[in-house]
């Protein structure tokens, strides 16, 4: 049965940074690509660590996931457990300040309370790196900025209670903080990156599955690339399908305005944007989230299949 799996189990979350799996799920896109004799089982998660746990335990074969859990999973398993095989989303995180906080310029962050979604996650690391770059230190490093990892809904509440001055938040929360929490966009994270691109979601495959079933993975990646192109060329329709699928899974659609606003901050892509991830990993290590020794991330990526497909399609391969 080598090379031909009967069931492929794929994880995703119902979230706007997961456009490909959501739209794919809704349209049966991947089913067509992998063929009749492969059955797709979608598994929906609420958060990255649970998906990595499932990947570790062999309960799923691949998953769409953010960069931070992917790095953690890779490092925890000494590079054994997983490979990043393609990108999915770029952008979609912003630094939002409360309108009446009086923050106008980076120096105003001295002595402030700033939230991130979770200790050591992508936005948390970005926030800490950005503060450092502007000569500010967090309290635990002897500075005066208080970085508070807080669940996104709580950030909104605390914005309204005026207990929080700013937050580095992913979409759609950045938009919600602005619209519902009396917030103001201070910085779109894209402005910090070359070409405004940095990875927020990619496709991760279990290393074992990749070894055992390269064909299946390849078919999947092909469909993924095609779907990415389709979404980019049919954005309004794709957004509608995405929102429908989110509603189906969470019982609640995003307001159209919020969806549109959020999409202006992110981009759907198959490029894994490796450089942005490695930079982020370095920052993460500097902030102390990756142990005492900078881990070797050399085998984190396996983009040979992606490049084969890109070449097949006459597109530019990724270095």
């Amino acid at each position, binding site marked *: 049965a080598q090379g031909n799996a009967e069931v492929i*189990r794929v*994880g995703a979350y*119902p979230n706007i940074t997961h456009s490909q799996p959501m739209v794919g799920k809704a349209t049966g896109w991947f089913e067509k690509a992998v063929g009749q004799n492969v059955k797709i089982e979608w*598994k*929906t*998660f*609420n958060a990255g660590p*649970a998906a990595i*746990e*499932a990947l*570790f*335990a*062999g*309960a*799923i074969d691949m998953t769409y996931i953010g960069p931070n859990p992917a790095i953690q999973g890779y490092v925890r398993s000494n590079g054994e457990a997983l490979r990043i095989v393609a990108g999915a989303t770029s952008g979609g995180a912003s630094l939002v300040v409360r309108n009446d906080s009086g923050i106008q310029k980076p120096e105003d962050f001295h002595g402030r309370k700033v939230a991130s979604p979770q200790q050591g996650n992508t936005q948390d690391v970005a926030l800490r790196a950005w503060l450092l770059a502007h000569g500010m230190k967090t309290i635990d490093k002897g500075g005066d900025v208080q970085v508070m990892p807080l*669940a*996104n*809904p709580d950030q*909104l*509440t605390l914005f*309204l209670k005026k207990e929080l001055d700013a937050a580095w938040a992913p979409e759609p929360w950045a938009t*919600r903080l602005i619209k*519902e929490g009396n917030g103001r966009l201070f910085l779109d994270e894209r402005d910090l990156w070359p070409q405004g691109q940095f990875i927020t979601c990619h496709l991760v495959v279990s290393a074992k599955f990749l070894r055992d079933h390269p064909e299946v993975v390849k078919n999947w990646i092909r469909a993924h690339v095609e779907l990415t192109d389709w979404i980019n060329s049919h954005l309004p329709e794709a957004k509608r399908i995405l929102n429908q699928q989110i509603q189906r*899974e*969470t*019982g*609640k659609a995003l307001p159209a305005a919020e969806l549109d606003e959020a999409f202006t901050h992110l981009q759907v892509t198959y490029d894994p944007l490796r450089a942005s991830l490695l930079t982020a990993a370095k920052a993460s290590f500097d902030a102390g989230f990756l142990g005492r020794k900078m881990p070797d991330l050399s085998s984190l990526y396996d983009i040979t299949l992606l490049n084969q497909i890109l070449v097949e399609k006459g597109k530019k391969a990724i270095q």
Partner: protein
Amino acid sequence: MRRIGRQVIFYGILFGLWFVLAKLKIWPPYIFPTPWGVAESLGAGFQDHSFWIAIGVSMKRMLLGYGISVMLGMVLGLAVASNKFLEDTIGGLLVSLQSLPSICWLPLAVLWFGLTEKAILFVVVMGSLLSVTIAMEDGRKQMPKIYGMAGRNLGARGFKLFWYVLLPASLPFIVSGLKQGWAFAWRSLISGEMIFVSLGLGQLLMMGRDLNDMSQVIAVMILIIAIGYIVDGLVFKTVERRLQNKWGLAPAT
């Protein structure tokens, strides 16, 4: 009759207060949801069947998981209460193991059972099993000595002694423990349903929180409370009332 009257007054005041607070708009509605917002959430959830499905799915898991906990927990509790070795070893760990939050069991559940119903059941069982065990052990130990003596004197041995004497004699304890176990089971179910998205009420609750949709959170809370109320009334309260009548125990003074 008077009971119903009291309840009408109570719930009336409760809702009235909520209504007034919501009307006063001290907090914005997405933080402090309004009764009509919640009613709308409830209506929508039942209309598109998602609440019915969630209730069905979650109740099935509760019945299975809690049922297993009750049976295993009783056996284990009895074993711990009657066996010196078990008492000195696991006996000392019951409370502390029961204190472990469900989050500790999630990785094991996924490891052993994958993303299946069994994994959720495992979390529910691990969350409530030892609660029942504690109650059973305590019931067995704090039971007046005379019952055990009378039972053995009349020829009850082994399983018969357990079933006809020790179990009924410690029933007042056990019923109280089963209520606690029920609460633990619910809480664990909610955690278990967070392993992966699996339709249940826990999922709806999580979604509500993740989207900061407080109306949905409150709507699910109301569902959980309603289910608990019904189960409490139909099962626990009935058993308690029968116990009190049979044993002639203290009514409120």
